[in-house]
């Protein structure tokens, strides 16, 4: 009687914990996964990271998962995870370096349209240290704005008022800018229009049906932009501007 009860309790406990992974457990799993990765057991490490990723996420976690995939030879999955990591931490140098290496192993070389970029520094600035960076900044700026406005009510000294007025102007701009950036960030994170080709090869056709003329062939690991979806076909665009239709399911959204 007693052992069965114990067993039941244990099962309940396991079920409970498996259901809701708390932060401490996640951290422990990550440490275990790190050592598995260092020991060369990449598949094991990936499984552990994956279980953490059910409840938690971070750029570092996705980056590590990408590394596992890369080591296991799945370049497309590696690229997918690096891209996801970049979403969370734009301009991260480690992720960019590994993504570049992984991209070199993709069969398709797509010359991207020349765009004006300020490099990863700017991307890092826009992205902030984490997805909540600008939202937090906007809160601080807002609080400071009203604090300095309140200060104006009580300070009558000339120099003091001048300082406070400058502060009000600065924090007002700061609030607007950081809110705008937080909004952009939020929109970027919610983007669903970029995808990585996951099937070994896919014919890109001129129309959304199987009879369409094959315009070009894409291979695993290539990044595309999804423009629209019609009847199980999606219109994709390459970085070089080429557009065509592929069946839904050949790519995975970043």
């Amino acid at each position: 009687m007693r052992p069965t009860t114990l067993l039941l309790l244990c099962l309940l406990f396991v079920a409970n914990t498996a259901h809701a992974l708390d932060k401490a457990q996640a951290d422990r799993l990550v440490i275990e996964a790190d050592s598995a990765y260092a020991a060369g057991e990449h598949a094991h490490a990936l499984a552990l990271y994956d279980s953490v990723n059910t409840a938690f996420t971070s750029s570092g976690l996705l980056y590590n998962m990408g590394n596992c995939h890369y080591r296991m030879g799945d370049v497309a999955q590696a690229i997918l995870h690096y891209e996801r990591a970049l979403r969370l931490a734009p301009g991260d140098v480690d992720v960019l370096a590994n993504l570049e290496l992984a991209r070199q192993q993709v069969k398709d070389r797509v010359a991207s349209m020349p765009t004006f970029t300020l490099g990863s520094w700017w991307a890092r600035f826009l992205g902030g240290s984490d997805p909540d960076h600008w939202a937090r900044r906007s809160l601080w700026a807002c609080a400071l704005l009203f604090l300095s406005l309140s200060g104006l009510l009580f300070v009558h000294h000339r120099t003091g008022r001048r300082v406070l007025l400058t502060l009000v102007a600065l924090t007002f701009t700061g609030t607007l800018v950081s809110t705008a950036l937080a909004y952009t960030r939020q929109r970027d994170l919610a983007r669903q229009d970029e995808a990585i080709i996951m099937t070994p090869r896919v014919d890109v056709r001129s129309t959304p049906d199987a009879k369409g003329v094959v315009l070009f062939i894409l291979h695993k690991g290539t990044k595309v932009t999804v423009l629209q979806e019609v009847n199980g076909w999606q219109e994709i665009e390459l970085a070089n501007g080429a557009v065509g239709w592929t069946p839904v399911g050949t790519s995975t959204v970043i």
Partner: protein
Amino acid sequence: MRTTATIGLLLVLTFGGISRLSAQEITFQASVDRNTIAVGEHVKLSITLTNARGSFGAPDLGGMMVVQGPFDLPNMVIINGQMRGSLTRTWLLTATRPGRYTIGPAQAKVGGGTIQTEPIVVEVTKGNATRPGDPQAALGQQRDPNLFTTISLSRNKGYVGEQVIATYMLYSRYANLQSVPKEMPKISNAWVEEVDLGEPRWEDKLETINGVQYRVAVLRKQVLFPQRSGTLRIEPFVQTCVIDRSFFNPGRNVEVRSNAVEYTVLDLPPGAPTDFNGAVGELEMTVTAARTQVEVDGSVDISVRFTGRTNLKLLEAPVLELPGDLEVYDPKVVDRISVNAGGMGGSREFQYLIIPRHDGTFELPAIQVSYFDTKTGTYRTLSSEPITLEVAPGDGSASAPVPQRALQSDVQLLGTDIRHIRTGDLQLREQGKELFGSWAWTAGMAAPALGYVLLLGWHRRRTKAAQDVVGTRRKQADKVAQRHLALARQALDRNERDTFYNALSRALNGYLGDKFGLGPAESTRENIQERLSGLPDGTALAQRYSALITACDLARFAPIEDTPRGTLYQQAAALIGTIEQHFRA
């Protein structure tokens, strides 16, 4: 052999009495010492002719072989003046195969007639071979018991690349034999190393095969390393031999053809390590550094030495994975390889010259080489210890003859690989919980604004109140009056007359001055009375006020107290209360 064995022999009895001898009985008998022998054992065949002279040869031996003989044993006995003579001829015979052998009758010509012996049956049983020996030799013996050649292998099967020794032998029973090779087999699919034997010569010891003794010469020895799996076949070799050569006889040419041998070559098992260097057999590796402390531009000799029994000549130099800033030259190969009867063995040494071009501590990684161990049938990995090289900044003396190089060189990119995973705090966040747009964020943005609005409202009210002095005074009037009244009450209790009246009049005048917004100078009795009269029911209030002030003034300035002080106090308090109620309404 038969020709030599069959010797026509004339028995001449030198004694004269032939006629007398003829009187004796003539006998011709053949006998063996035993009728049953084992293979390899000898049987002695004796044929005796008594009291006659005649010639006889060896009988038909029925397949048995002569090991030794014939030996003649003449015997002469004189008995009673009568001479008896006999001749016994003996052979040692043997058989290579078990069976039933019949030694045929021997014939002797005596006088004009012929006499013969009885045939003898010899049983040869399997028995123990005298020497397990070389099966090829036994087979060769069956081809020609007197002269044959063999090829034998040290093993019947082995792995690709595993060495096997082929021996070419000549077996002969002739006293005089000259032999030259005529045809040597070509061996394909194998790497062949000849063992240097010098001039072929007879071995010191005779070899006995199935009881027959042979002179043996090793003509040739080869170490073979099969290169392909399957069957390796060595075709027979042909040797031209001159036999029976003597001063008078030019001899006879005989071509002797050996057996062919087949060798089964097994593939190496799958799962060869990536650093497998192709060596099959036994191998050891020693890695030594001549020194581990050196100055910049000095030189370090690293020796990688392989010893063992395998095809050392095919060993290639292991690639040293050196850290940058170390220059390494192509290794010098020093061989101490011997090919002898036991196969190929010895050592091959690779000497690397390393010149550090920068100071620091360098770790030369362990060298790993795998080979196939034929003893266990598995791949074995040899691994050396890593060598730590301490390179001290030189004083330039080491590189004195070397022209000055540029001090800087580009960092060399030796390979590319992804960066390592991020360890430590990954800053995990719960999925899908962004701050922006959440309730917390909205509240956080709204809270300061709300707080500011509240603060602003409070501030406005305060400022307005500060600007409205009259209103404030009016509001404060009651409090001030009450304070003065309290003072008056104290004075009343203590029976202090002046203080009481002062406080009472100040309470009244101050209160009303405040209420009507009058300055200290304007707060005269007349002004106050006038304002009071302006109020509804003002006349009565003005009269009450006037009466109180008059009483106070009288008491203060003249010693006249019409009304008791307690009554005055109560009247004043009541008046203030009434006016206050009036203003509140």
